[in-house]
């Protein structure tokens, strides 16, 4: 299993043709206190770069984009009861949704950890 990142600050763990998506620690730090997460329902088709979820902080609503195209298989039920998991464990228990990949070649353009860290360092 390998983890890749987008320049929109999502991460994606790929395991065969399934993947788990969340937002990075950097992203949660920028958002501040998360008070609500609107997650996609299982069965929904998402498109690479398209809106997949909405994360609400005290101040504002922000879109979370799908790093790759696919079909959502599960949303993280823990975020409904405890949206602050996005702040406390963004890259582990605070995952957003799982999906089945539509086209594994879409992973090619994503960043590895070193490239993402360098990207964030330059912001």
């Amino acid at each position, binding site marked *: 299993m390998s983890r890749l990142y987008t320049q929109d600050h999502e991460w994606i763990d790929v395991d065969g043709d399934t993947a788990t998506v969340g937002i990075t620690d950097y*992203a949660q730090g*920028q*958002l*501040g206190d998360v008070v609500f997460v609107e997650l996609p329902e299982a069965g929904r088709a998402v498109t690479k770069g398209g809106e997949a979820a909405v994360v609400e902080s005290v101040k504002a609503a922000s879109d979370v984009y799908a790093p790759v195209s696919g079909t959502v298989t599960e949303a993280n039920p823990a975020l409904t009861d405890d949206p602050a998991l996005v702040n406390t464990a963004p890259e582990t228990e605070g995952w957003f949704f799982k999906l089945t990949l539509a086209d594994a070649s879409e992973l090619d353009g994503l960043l590895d950890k070193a490239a993402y860290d360098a990207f964030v360092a330059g912001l």
Partner: protein
Amino acid sequence: MPGATVVAGGYMAEADLKSLPLDALHRRLGARMVGFAGYAMPIQFEGIIAEHVWTRESAGLFDVSHMGQLLVEGDGAGAWLETLAPGDFLALQPHRTRYSLLLTDDGGIIDDLMVTNTGKSYYMVVNGATKAGDIAHMQARLPAGITLTHMEDHALLALQGPQAVTVMGRLALAPAEADQPGFADLKFMAGARFLWNSITLGITRSGYTGEDGYEISVPAASAEALAEALLAHAEVKSIGLGARDSLRLEAGLPLYGHDIDTSVTPIEADLAYAISKRRKTEGGFPGTSLILDQLLNGAPRKRVGLSVEGRLPAREGATVWAGGRQVGVVTSGGFAPSLNVPIAMAMVETAHAGDGTALEIDVRGKRIGARVVPMPFKQKNYVREGTKA
């Protein structure tokens, strides 16, 4: 995504921002700085919820130096202010502070402001984003013999929360003038000048959080020393603009440019209390005929508080519905940290503005249940005249 957050929150991009006297201190304390009213300002330090709760339980130090501090001096200054705003400035006693509104000729709100009678002049605090317009508006109407001074060489700090009185009491503030109240006698909406380490501070017991507290005008060169002196007390932490917004929203206080603007009258804004009793009879302020008519016969729409069902916050701009018809729009909305629920203010048609009215808010195509509720959402904790300090 995080960049978009800043834009969605109503803040400006980083370029071409002016810096304020506490800029370096904020950055040393780890603030996240954003553009607001043309200045680089701290939006948060440790986090909005923690800062919000700290202010409600202890004391929060806010930098509000972006706001405009104005002095109006000269014979007839009070009478002149009465031609601009609906307050009874002639009856405003020395060392008393009043909330007021600058009005357009057709009764719209140019700005909301605090006016303190210093005994020799009127000291006013106006909003940062509107101060240039306010000054131009007043300069254009300034009669001979009255001067308007913009105190650009002063910073403005606010210490807010139940421990503010205790912390301020430790500063050993000496009255700057013999005939003014002592610090211990300052109650809500009162103000005077005090000496701190031989620096003159203009202090009002006021604020915009719904808590007891003070606003402190300090020469810019001494602002950092004063802020550090306040932060040295264990009860005090620096608080950013994010919590300032959530605190004022819970307190039911309107934010200029969001809940009120030149298209909104004081009656529509539910700010009739800013029109003094004598002025309701005598008029003589801009927009008198419309405003007094609305006061008597009602306005077509009204600013209300909404409790929002569920957990999804409704933001500014979300439309408000009664069945299939839009009856209003959310003007401020978000999550209330002290109540742990989403809340909103909205401008709605008066027929749907009664307490308890069930409405719906459209949030990204989803209808969320909402109900008109009295404001403040969170009970205010002011220490008024006649109450124990």
